[in-house]
């Protein structure tokens, strides 16, 4: 696929810095971060707790204001939250008083793009909602409330809700962190499947090395103090990927390399020390 220069820099972060101020103490959570993401790319932000990866994601989402640098998505400066940048959180955050169908329709309704019928390119109808629910495997559960769904189903509903407005980028903040191992594996497969299907651009925050290699086209390892992107590692494994790939030598090689970045051998002290100790971010 040929990308235009603008598409090659769909997400463009230049020199972004963020300082938190609490009780007169200033903590620099991020400093001089540069990141570009191309259209259709799957980028993972990997790092230990407090390395600023969620901070960066929240800045991109427009949830968190930033003082230094610029963050642009699709040529627009990020100034606040927008439907153009979809976001998924660690828990699905479905609205408990709405059915699955109503949850998915929330975005279009809030943006006044909801039409009962007579669809145009800019509007969404009930048929669109049902179609996407079928795609994510929730046919038959359109009228169920979130409490009635299983853990994986809730995440898939949240995915449908985030994707229905076709955002230019989907930001995911450790979305599967709270799931059990099996559901989590299924959700990773689901996400890869959907990513190929919808050709979405994804920025995915995780602290799980394997997850980042399995999913990403590129892994940005974060750490340091003040935190930033320490190294970008392109993942040149074939697609589609699956759990069988986890044991291949190539996979293990990348895994070892990333681990060495995150936990370098410190000579003379004989023990491993993680990069990027805690900052204020995760204590928020």
């Amino acid at each position, binding site marked *: 696929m040929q990308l235009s220069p603008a598409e090659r820099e769909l997400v463009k972060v230049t020199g972004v810095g963020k300082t938190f101020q609490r009780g007169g103490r200033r903590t620099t959570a991020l400093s001089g971060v540069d990141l570009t993401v191309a259209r259709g790319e799957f980028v993972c932000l990997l790092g230990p707790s407090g390395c600023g990866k969620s901070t960066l994601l929240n800045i991109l*989402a427009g949830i968190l204001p930033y003082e230094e640098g610029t963050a642009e998505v699709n040529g627009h400066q990020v100034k606040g939250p927008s439907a153009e940048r979809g976001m998924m959180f660690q828990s699905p955050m479905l609205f408990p*008083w709405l059915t699955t169908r109503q949850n998915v329709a929330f975005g279009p309704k809030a943006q006044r793009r909801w039409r009962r019928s007579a669809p145009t390119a800019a509007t969404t109808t009930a048929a669109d909602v049902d179609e996407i629910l079928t795609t994510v495997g929730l046919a038959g559960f359109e009228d169920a409330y979130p409490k009635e769904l299983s853990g994986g189903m809730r995440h898939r509903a949240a995915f449908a809700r985030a994707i229905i*407005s076709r955002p230019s980028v989907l930001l995911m903040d450790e979305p599967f962190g709270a799931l059990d191992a099996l559901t989590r594996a299924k959700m990773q*497969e689901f996400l890869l499947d959907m990513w190929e299907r919808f050709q979405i651009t994804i920025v995915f925050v995780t602290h799980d090395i394997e997850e980042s290699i399995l999913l990403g086209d590129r892994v940005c390892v974060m750490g340091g103090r003040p935190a930033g992107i320490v190294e970008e590692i392109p993942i040149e494994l074939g697609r589609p990927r699956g759990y069988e790939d986890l044991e291949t030598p190539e996979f293990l090689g990348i895994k070892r390399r990333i681990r060495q970045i995150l936990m370098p051998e410190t000579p003379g002290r004989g023990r491993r020390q993680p990069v990027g100790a805690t900052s204020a971010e995760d204590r928020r």
Partner: protein
Amino acid sequence: MTAIDINVADRHTPAWEAGEETVDLAAQRRRARRARLHRTALKITGVLILLGAWEIGALIINDSSILPSVQNTFSTLVHYLNRPYPAASDPLWKDIVVSGRRILIGFVLAVAGGVLIGSAMWSWRPLRDMIDPVIELTRPLPPLAFIPLLIVWFGIGELPKVVLIIIGVLPIMIVSTVAALDGVPPELDQCARTLGASRLYTLFHVQLRAAVPGIITGMRLSMGGAWTSIVAVEMIAATSGVGFLILQAGNYSITNLVLSGIIAIGIVSLVFDAFLRGLLRLADPSRPVSE
């Protein structure tokens, strides 16, 4: 990535769906309904046991001026429902309507005010810091302590009764509104914003909406207090209402009429609470049916 478009269609037998823990919606809802029925049966049993104990007590005492039997009480209740009883000119249903009206007027005003003030306090910190101590200072005071003051200020008309209800209900509604809004996870609001909702849309459709169950729970809590207040003030300064009826009947030692009044209050407040619970179920359909 060019080859993907072609591959996806036949590859798409979603592996991520295989072996998914099955969720049978119909069965789940059937189970919930059965559990609800079961619980209703138990509730009725509880009430029957209470009535049985009362009947046995009445049989043992065998003096209807101290403890009339169940059927004596209920026939009195039915008898005086639309007939004026001795020492008063109004039938029972009128007293119930009078008391119910006083409560509803005060309650609706207090709930509206409480939600409004609570939301304002939640969205504007300085206001919260200012009003919080006022509530903390006045909340422990029993509303009944204000009755003499209210009589001095407003006489013995309808106004002091309504004001008394407001005094009791308003602080509870403010506190529960603020607490309910505090309890809405910030991610829910962020989520709505990233779905394209404006700040105002989010306030009404997400934050206040998410707080509704907590607000209704506050309404249920304060409803009990409202009945206490109204009966007390009707006993002290009124010529109508169920409280007045009970006091009058007590003065004339008509025990079965006293009990009829009490039961009437019980039934009416049960109806009010059932209404609020219905609202709660509407507001929060995914709530487990435990309450």
